[in-house]
């Protein structure tokens, strides 16, 4: 009975033309996981922007009596051209993931084509802009490598692809995706060595020092409960810093997993089973979920 049912289903799929190759199936799964992971990468920059603004705000409050308020004192951490470059590169990775899913689905999608084309053109414009040179510099990467990676990503998004071109797309995009992920990983950096993680540490050290100064400066006027509340904020700041740093580290891990999974997907073109790809995909999905839950908690605080 079960055999009959299985045979009928296979026949039905064959007749209706819905057969999906193992590679297309894997590309679709990769697309879902990669989209989730890249959505989270943008949040890493947002997290550090917030800590940087918070540090400036507490300093403003503590020093208002002596320094007053000058609007130019409050600045964003990331220069706008550098942030725009990163936003476009992350959007490019997302669109690449979407492209894989659509190509694997055998369906021409006009709306996606238009979106891809627009983003592809903006990426090609980015490939020779000053914003991109800043990304390359931060990753100690040759400007030519960054430019080539972004240009290749832009080109693939502009061209209208079909399912039969999937293996070619994967081969073509292996190095550009690796390079872009590496550039973004380098941006995140380390707590002691520079990048977003170092900036987070610097901001939280300032927040803690400013909070301690605020307590000493105002404790004579505080009720015991108010004093307790303000003192309790010190360990809260330490905990939040630790959580945020873990989130940034997980974002780095997700970028690494994204590049490795994309490589494994490209390498599995001729395989029916792809155990290496499966293992990396599971890792990418896990990293994406972990970052998601931490960002959700952080942003709701």
């Amino acid at each position, binding site marked *: 009975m079960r055999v009959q049912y299985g045979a009928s289903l296979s026949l039905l799929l064959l007749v209706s033309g819905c057969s999906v190759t193992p590679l297309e199936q894997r590309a679709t799964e990769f697309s879902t996981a990669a989209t989730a992971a890249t959505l989270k990468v943008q949040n890493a920059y947002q997290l550090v922007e917030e800590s*940087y603004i918070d*540090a400036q705000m507490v*300093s403003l409050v*503590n020093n208002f009596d002596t320094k007053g308020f000058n609007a130019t004192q409050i600045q964003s*951490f*990331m*220069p706008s051209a*550098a942030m725009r470059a990163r936003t476009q590169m992350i959007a490019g990775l997302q669109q690449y993931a979407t492209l894989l899913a659509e190509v694997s689905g055998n369906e021409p999608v006009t709306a996606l084509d238009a979106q891809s084309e627009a983003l592809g053109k903006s990426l090609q414009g980015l490939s020779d802009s*000053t914003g991109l*040179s*800043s*990304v390359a*510099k*931060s990753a100690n990467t040759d400007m030519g490598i960054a430019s080539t990676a972004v240009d290749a990503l832009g080109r693939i998004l502009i061209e209208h692809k079909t399912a039969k071109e999937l293996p070619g797309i994967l081969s073509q995009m292996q190095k550009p995706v690796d390079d872009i992920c590496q550039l973004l990983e380098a*941006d995140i*950096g380390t707590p*002691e*060595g*520079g*990048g977003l993680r*170092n*900036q987070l540490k*610097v*901001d939280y*050290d*300032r927040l*803690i*020092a*400013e909070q*301690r*100064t605020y307590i*000493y*400066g105002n404790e004579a006027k505080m009720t015991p409960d108010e004093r307790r509340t303000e003192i309790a904020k010190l360990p809260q700041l330490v905990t939040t810093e630790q959580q945020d740093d873990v989130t940034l580290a997980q974002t780095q891990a997700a970028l690494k997993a994204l590049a490795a999974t994309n490589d494994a997907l490209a390498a599995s073109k001729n395989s029916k089973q792809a155990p290496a790809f499966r293992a990396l995909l599971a890792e990418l999905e896990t990293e994406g979920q972990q970052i998601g839950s931490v960002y959700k908690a952080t942003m709701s605080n």
Partner: protein
Amino acid sequence: MSTDSSIPTDIPQTRAAAQALEDKLAQANPTNLADSQAVCTALEAVGALLTQLNRQDLLSRDGAMQEAAAAMKDPLQTLSDLKDQLTGISARVAALVNIANDVDKVVNGCAKHFPV
């Protein structure tokens, strides 16, 4: 006036010196308002230097070096001004031992590699 001849010889060493000073100030645990304010101000100044170094990493070298140098002028002056006060605090706050040398390394390193 320098109290230590080991001036950082390149930008990574200058960063390491600034990071070491930042770590030391962050670990200090001042127990009165005046000390806390001095540590806080020094932390803000060295934090501003590290922020410029982080930004400089994110920007292209030629234009950014001049911007970074200009933005470092005030924090470096603040650190120099605070050196004597921090040295005084170090008599009470163990974590700040040898702070004058640390300040000198950062100020001299930044002055050498980011002419202001």
